[in-house]
């Protein structure tokens, strides 16, 4: 009985880890089409007048290093994109994307993929 309990727990853990592993893999290797979509959004909306692709002396943050002023997780970045940052030029884009939140996630995927961070 004790052994069965242990086996059951092991199975749950294995399933859990497996799921986590898959999720991790997704985060590391996103769909190229999603990255391309994110890049197109960045080019069309973020890049020309605001966020540059090389470090520059502007009020808009450089987004391709490891420094995330408002939080570094995908969810943190998602919140900034959709909700904006008060007192800055970063307006809330929530609701304005052609494909809604999916586009915000695509932007994040592009930012991650184009990161010049060595970590």
């Amino acid at each position, binding site marked *: 009985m004790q052994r069965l309990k242990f086996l059951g727990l092991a199975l749950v853990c294995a399933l859990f880890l497996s799921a986590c592993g898959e999720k991790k893999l997704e985060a590391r290797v996103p769909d190229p089409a999603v990255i391309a979509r994110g890049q197109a959004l960045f*080019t069309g*909306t973020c890049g*020309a*007048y605001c966020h540059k692709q090389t470090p520059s002396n*502007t009020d808009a943050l450089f987004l391709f290093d490891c420094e995330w002023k408002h939080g570094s997780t995908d969810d943190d970045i998602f919140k900034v994109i959709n909700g904006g940052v008060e007192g800055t030029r970063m307006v809330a884009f929530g609701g304005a994307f052609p494909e809604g939140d999916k586009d915000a996630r695509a932007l994040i995927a592009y930012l991650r993929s184009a990161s010049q961070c060595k970590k």
Partner: protein
Amino acid sequence: MRQARKWAIGLAGVLFALGLASGARAAATAGLTPSILESPSVVVSPAKEPVGAKAGVTGEMLKAGTTDTSKWLMYGGDYSNFRFSPIKSITPENAKNLKAAWSFPTGTLGQFETSPVIYGGVMYVTTSNSRVMALDAKTGKLLWRYDYTLPADLRVCCGPVNRGVAISGDVVLWVTLDAHMLALDRRTGNVKWNIEIAPFADGFAATSAPLVIGDKAITGIAGGEYGVRGFFDAYDIATGKRLWRHYTVPAAGEPGAETWASDSYKTGGSPTWTTGAYDPETDTLYWTTGNPSPDWNGDLRMGDNLYSNSILAVDPNTGIRKWHFQFTPHDVWDYDGNSHIFLVDTEIGGKPVKAVLQPNRNGFFYALDRTNGKFLYAKQYAEELNWAKGVDENGRPIVDPAAEPQDKPTMRVCPGNMGGLNGAWTASYSPLTKLAYVPSIEGCQHYAKGIVVTVKGIPMLGGMPDPIDVTEGKDHGVLSAVDVATGEVKWRYQDPDPMMGGALSTAGGVVFTSTQDGHALALDATTGKELWRFRMGGSGRGQPVAYEIDGKTYVAVPSGGWVAITALSGGPVNIPEGGQLFVFTIDK
């Protein structure tokens, strides 16, 4: 230098990160956030006693243009926009003797793009960040000053600029970065009225000198990078009441609406940010329009996008359009059609013609019949032009599809998005040489296309240009002398930096302009030979004017650039900002 340039390309590529940053700076200089590190707070310093001539500026004076050399009464010098002075005292032989008479600071950062107005011995100068000053035109003494208080969150695409006042009766008329128009008493600087042209928070700004016709002041607006719906207006000079508005993007059901897919006209841009011209003989006002929005992705606005990148001929009494001509249909390069226009009576193909001419930002020099808008010719004046393979018999460009913005652009497309000649600085036409003098940028770009996200009041661009020639150090500047009868370039003056200072020609046979490395220049109007240069310091981005007082000749040249635009064009980014007006004279 290359390192500095690299840094600044990054900075500027942003242009406008800058735009709004400059807004914040404007606010600071305007005193909203006083700081010892910023320019002084707002100063409103009216004259204690009225200055200048008692008699007001009349319509006849405006029609006479620069023929009375004691006056320079409007942006273009005269209604035909020649920026030509009949002053003969400065010649190719004696121009080397030009010397500084006086100088005056603006106290502001950003491009100093003004074209001074001179009347009754008083010079009216506007500066970046919405200031206007009255100076003694002979000595440079400050007579009155009015600093406008700007909001902190301006929507300025291309720097905190202003290009000058208009004058009529006893007022000077002037527009501000938050899209207001003001009438100031020209003798004291006191405000007579102040009206909102359009809400700045929606993406509007105003930067150019109004044009006075009779009792009306005509003004356009900027906002083509913010997806506004463009227009130009006429206001009653006495009261500030709006008399008519001419939308440059048709609404549903109006002629031209079929040239906009779906409801894309609602954010169609087509701004009107430069000063027009006027033909008193036919009572016709000519005004130009800029790029459709979004700039670099036309997929959502399929069609020709009338009346973007066009010249419009309208009745100044009603604002009703007589005809239009579109230079760059369905523009996807940001080739605003707002550059300088001239109204010239000339011969083309052996026939006399009342022409309107434009060195366009797209690299072609256009001639149209100004009585009906009929296309006459378009000749390449830019050294490099490859976005189109020419124009057809109606003047429509034959576009190279490969030059359109791409997801991953590889084609080096010329001219770049700033021109050519850009509406931010002027050209000049001499009726004596029959040449148009056109300062321009020579540089090409990659045009990248992306997905448009529309949020009111933020830039609506759809892509971005990559100034590859700047990166590779290939960019430079020229001043081209174009024979208006044929469109052929007779000579070119070359400068290592893009030439983004305005032009003035004189009857003595001299052309004045300025360079981004901070020199005022005098060139031989017939040959282009350099005659004289003076190091002003700040980048030359303003419009020179000439006048005479007490028998002495003066030439005013503004100095002062903005690092962001300088960098995007490929100019020297290590020159500090800060406006300074220089006035030169010559001993007879």
